[in-house]
C-alpha cells in the first residue's frame, strides 16, 4: 500500500508522454484515476489497459467541455484529492518566432495551457476544498516548463502561456492555502515525449528524461505537499516554481 492507494486523481492529457506515465504510475499505486484526452480511440485503449481507470474524451480548451468533464471526474471518483493539469499545446508547429506566429495558434496555446486549467480548476475547487476539509488534503499541479521563465526564441506562444499558468498557480496558492488546497507549478524537465519531438525534432532521445522518471518525481512532490514528507530522491531535478523564484 502506498501513499496514493485509494487517492482520487484527475489528469488531463493522460494518453501520451508525462500524462500517460502518471496514469501508469498512479494505477500501479492503486490510486483512483480519471484521465482526459481528446482522442476517443486512445482514451478507450488506455482505459482498457488500466482496469478501474476512468477515461474521458474531452478537450480542455473547449469551454463547453469543462463541466461535463468535471461531472464525470466527480461522479466516477466520488470526489477529488489531486488535479494534474498536464495537457499542453505548443502553439505553432513547427515552433515560430512571435512575429511569425498566427494569432489562432497563440490563442490555442492560451486556451489549452491557461484558460482550460483555470476553468477546470474552478469547476473542481469545491470538491478539492471538501477533500481538504475532510482531512484528505488537496493538491493541484500545473505542469510548467523552464520556458515559463527563460526567453527562448521561437517558444513565444508556449512560453507566454506557461508563464501565465505559473503566475496563476502562485495566486491560487496564496488565495486558497487557508482552505487547505496546495497549488504546485512543476517543471518536469525535457522529456522524451511526442510533444518534445514536435518541438525539437532533432533532439537526441538518449539525452532526454524518461517520462516515467518525471512522473515519479512529480508524485514525490505531490506526496510532500500532501503529507509534508521529505522525499529526497529526484526532487532536485524538478523545479517547483515557488522555489525557483
Amino acid at each position: 500500500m502506498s501513499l496514493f492507494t485509494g487517492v482520487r486523481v484527475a489528469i488531463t492529457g493522460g494518453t501520451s508522454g508525462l500524462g500517460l506515465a502518471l496514469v501508469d504510475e498512479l494505477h500501479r499505486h492503486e490510486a483512483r484515476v480519471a484521465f482526459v484526452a481528446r482522442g476517443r480511440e486512445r482514451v478507450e485503449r488506455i482505459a482498457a489497459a488500466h482496469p478501474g481507470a476512468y477515461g474521458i474524451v474531452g478537450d480542455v480548451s473547449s469551454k463547453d467541455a469543462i463541466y461535463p468533464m468535471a461531472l464525470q471526474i466527480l461522479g466516477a471518483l466520488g470526489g477529488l484529492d489531486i488535479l494534474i493539469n498536464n495537457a499542453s499545446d505548443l502553439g505553432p508547429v513547427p515552433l515560430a518566432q512571435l512575429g511569425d506566429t498566427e494569432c489562432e495558434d497563440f490563442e490555442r496555446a492560451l486556451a489549452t495551457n491557461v484558460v482550460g486549467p483555470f476553468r477546470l480548476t474552478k469547476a473542481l475547487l469545491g470538491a478539492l476544498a471538501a477533500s481538504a476539509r475532510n482531512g484528505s488534503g488537496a493538491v493541484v499541479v500545473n505542469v510548467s516548463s523552464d520556458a515559463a521563465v527563460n526567453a527562448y526564441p521561437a517558444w513565444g506562444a508556449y512560453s507566454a502561456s506557461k508563464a501565465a499558468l505559473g503566475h496563476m498557480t502562485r495566486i491560487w496558492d496564496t488565495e486558497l492555502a487557508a482552505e487547505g488546497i496546495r497549488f504546485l507549478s512543476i517543471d518536469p524537465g525535457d522529456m522524451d515525449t511526442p510533444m518534445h519531438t514536435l518541438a525539437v525534432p532533432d533532439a537526441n532521445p538518449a539525452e532526454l528524461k524518461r517520462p516515467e522518471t518525471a512522473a515519479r518525481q512529480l508524485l514525490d512532490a505531490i506526496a510532500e505537499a500532501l503529507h509534508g514528507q521529505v522525499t529526497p530522491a529526484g526532487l532536485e531535478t524538478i523545479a517547483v516554481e515557488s522555489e525557483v523564484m
Partner: protein
Amino acid sequence: MTSAKLLFVSADGQLRHLARDAFVGLLRPSDLVVANDAATLPASLHGVHVPTGEAIEVRLAGWDGGNWHDPFRFTAIVFGSGDYRTRTEDRPLPPPLAPGDPIRLGSLSATITNVLRHPRLVSLRFNHSHDAIWRGLAGHGRPIQYAHAAAPLVLWDVWTRIAAAPVAFEPPSAGFALSWHMLSKMRARGIRFATITHAAGISSTGDEALDQQLPFDEPYEIPIATARAIAHTRVRGGRVVAIGTTVVRALEHASIGDGNVRAGRGIATEHINAGSRLVVADALLSGIHEPGTSHYDLLRAFADDSTLDLADQAVHSSAYRAHEFGDSIFIERVQPDLPIRVMRAPEASAMIVSC
C-alpha cells in the same frame, strides 16, 4: 451577486433590509456556517418511450433506494413532448407507462421498474455500467430548466462555488450566496465553515398532486469533520448557521439530541414545519420562499407566524426575487423554552449509518 438583497429576521423578530454581502457581518466569531456541497446533476434527459415511439422528457428527481453511490436507480418524473419553454403546468402527460417499458435517452437506455403514485412518477433503472451512466449523463443530460430563465441553463449556472458531489437534482440554491471571498472573510473573523452533502430534490413539478408529495426522501452524508465542528461550536457557545433548507433537514435528522449530530449517511424523511422543534440549526440563510411551499413551512420552525407574515410583507413590498438565483433571507431561530421534542420518525433513525 453583489446586487442581491438580504432580509435579516433576528431572533427578537426585528427585520432589516441589507445587501447580501452584509451576511458575514451578521455572524459571530464563534459561529459555524454549514453549507450543502452537492453539485447539481444534468437531470433532464430527452428521449423516446420505446413501446410507443413517443417523445418524452425524463427528469431524474430522487435516488431510488436512497443511495447515490449506486447511480443505477432513480425516481423520475416523466413529461410528454415539449420542453421547458412550456410551463410545466401545461406540459402533456407522457404516454401510458408500465413496468418493464424500455426508454431511450441519448446514449443511455433504461427500463421503467415501477409506476408510482402518479402517471408522471416512476422508478427506473439504467442498463449500463457505473462509468457509462456518468458518460451518458455528461453527454446528454441538461440541468432541469426553468421557464423564467432568460436562456437555457448549463451546468456552470447551477453549480455553487462549493459544489463537490454531483448528487442534487436541482441546485442547493442558498449556496449561491457563498463565494471564496466570503469564506476568507469568515475565516478572518474566526467563523468556521463546514459542509454536508444533501441530494437536494426538485422543488416543484408543476403538478399539484405531485407537489403535495415534495420533498421526496433525500439522502445526505455528514462528514466526521463536520460533526466534530458542530460539537466544537457547542463547546465554544457558538451558533450553527445553516445555508439552505437542505442543511437544516439533514442536521436535524442526524441530531443526537444535545445540539450535536451523528456523522454518516441518512435519509431525511421528515417535513419540518411550525410544529417541529429544531435542536441543531440556530439560524438559516435561505432563498425567498412563497407561503404554502415546503421550504416556507420549514421557516416556520425558526420564527412564529406573525414574524413570518411581516417578513413576507417586507419581501413583497421591496420586490425581493424569489427564484433559485434570487435574493436571500437570514433568519435566527427564536429560542423557545419548550421541552425538546425529537422530531425524527423512529423508522428513519435506523437509516443513519455511522462512518
